[in-house]
């Protein structure tokens, strides 16, 4: 062996031959390089939610949902209360005026409630008290289950949003589970009438439900003018899809999505509405109103008009008629956007 090498003591210890060591070294370096190059070639999205989007291919069509869209006409109930009227009262009257929750909701239905909890701001979210009121009414229809859920705006943690807006604790008291949909599995749903998309990934909880109760807060929106029930449905798709919507055509994608995940019942929280700027940072105006309908398009048209009225816009009906995604949804048959075909039932409670 070499000169000057350490003495016999080394031979007592387990020896690894030069060749073995070299082999191990090369294997190790190859492994390290391999793992690192994988990281390079396939950059992993570290948002765990994005990783779960390998959808299963079970398909569902719009007929899963109990109410079918009608192009004939629609009815929208607008319940206005004075400042002292509680949200529960507004909700009760709204559902009564629509025909009563037992008529609207088939018994044994699997209900999914979609509040708006996109941000960490209480003002931007649906008022939890309104959600509680709705849930309490829904229970009377004897559904098989009620689940609430949301997937917040990209970058916001849904859990934290649910916590900080009080949605989790307040709604949790009713016994209804409030789910962070990002933890849910994503499934693929085909869109037969889709103009911008032929299929979309949605969260399993939503697809598996038989009755969707859409509960947005009435707000302005920077990109879509307003965000009401149609836009609120974006919280039922994974982050990657939200991104895709923006890349393809946001308004058309919202319409396409609603054509397969059509809300069966829409209850719009207009107790405090966000004006001038949205979906966050706007000026809150107290209207103490609840707008309800079985037609999401009609509900949005009416609600948009209310919002513009509250802002003092000159021709609120015309402005509401110009909202792109509402018109596109009407074209797909999701609902009625023609003001003349919408019956508005006004209820005042003092």
């Amino acid at each position, binding site marked *: 062996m070499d000169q000057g090498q350490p003495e016999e003591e080394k031979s007592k210890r387990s020896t690894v031959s030069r060749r073995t060591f070299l082999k191990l070294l090369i294997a190790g370096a190859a492994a390290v390089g391999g793992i690192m190059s994988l990281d390079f070639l396939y950059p992993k999205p570290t948002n765990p939610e994005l990783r779960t989007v390998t959808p299963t291919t079970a398909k569902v069509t719009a007929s899963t949902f109990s109410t079918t869209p009608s192009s004939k006409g629609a009815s929208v109930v607008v319940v206005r209360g004075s400042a002292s009227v509680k949200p529960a009262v507004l909700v009760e009257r709204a559902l009564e005026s629509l025909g009563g929750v037992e008529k609207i909701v088939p018994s044994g239905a699997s209900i999914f409630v979609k509040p708006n909890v996109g941000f960490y701001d209480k003002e931007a979210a649906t008022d939890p008290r309104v959600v509680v009121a709705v849930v309490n009414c829904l229970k009377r229809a004897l559904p098989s289950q009620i689940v609430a859920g949301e997937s917040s705006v990209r970058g916001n943690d849904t859990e934290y949003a649910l916590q900080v807006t009080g949605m989790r604790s307040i709604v949790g008291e009713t016994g209804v589970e409030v789910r962070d949909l990002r933890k849910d599995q994503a499934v693929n749903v085909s869109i037969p009438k889709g103009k911008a998309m032929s299929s979309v990934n949605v969260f399993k909880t939503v697809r598996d439900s038989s009755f969707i109760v859409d509960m947005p807060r009435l707000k302005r929106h920077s990109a879509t003018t307003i965000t009401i029930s149609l836009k609120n449905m974006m919280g039922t798709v994974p982050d990657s899809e939200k991104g*895709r919507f923006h890349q393809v055509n946001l308004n058309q994608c919202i319409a396409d999505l609603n054509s397969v995940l059509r809300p069966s019942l829409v209850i719009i929280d207009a107790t405090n509405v966000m004006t001038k700027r949205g979906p966050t940072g706007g000026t809150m105006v107290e209207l103490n109103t609840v707008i309800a309908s079985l037609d999401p398009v009609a509900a949005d048209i009416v609600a948009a008009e209310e919002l513009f009225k509250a802002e003092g816009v000159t021709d609120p009906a015309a402005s509401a008629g110009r909202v*792109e995604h509402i018109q596109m949804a009407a074209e797909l048959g999701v609902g009625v956007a023609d003001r003349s075909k919408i019956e508005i039932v006004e209820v005042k409670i003092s």
Partner: protein
Amino acid sequence: MKRRDFLRLFGVGLVTFSFFDILPRVFRGRPLVRPPGSRVEDLFNAVCVRCVRCVQICPTSVIAMATLGDGFKELGTPKIDPARGSCERIHGRCAEQARCAQVCPTGAILDVQKENVKLGSTVINTGKCIAWQGGPCLTCYEVCPVIGAITLFDESRPLFNENICVGCGRCAYACPAEPKALTLTSKGERRT
């Protein structure tokens, strides 16, 4: 030990470590964006003991370990990576107190008042931006927690104000364009 050997060994150590520092400077790209309340860069590198406690505790995972491309001697130090999340010191889970500053044992990251937090600022590549290319997107404007940091041109296209922007990275994270139109830079950062 002979003095010559002593000097050689001592010298070898010094030279090796200098090499780790000097050579990569040639290859380094833009300066790193550091967690909010970080010391000035020289002091940061001196004081950070590479314990990665901040990386472990960050609730949004926006703090990442610097890699080789960030500089040799910076390996293991924390940097802000908006591809993974955004800094919620201004608005969100760290609004009360910066958790990274809380666990940093050497004071490389100090807990500063919210008003003084500025990690850097965001720049936009309008060629990649969906809105500037005509599409309906204002995701950055939607998620921005600082009013005035992003304003709208023609009510449809985002304009970035690097003075008001605090560099939280929410817009850069949420930007749906592929490749992203927004980059978080260290420009205008406030260090302690």
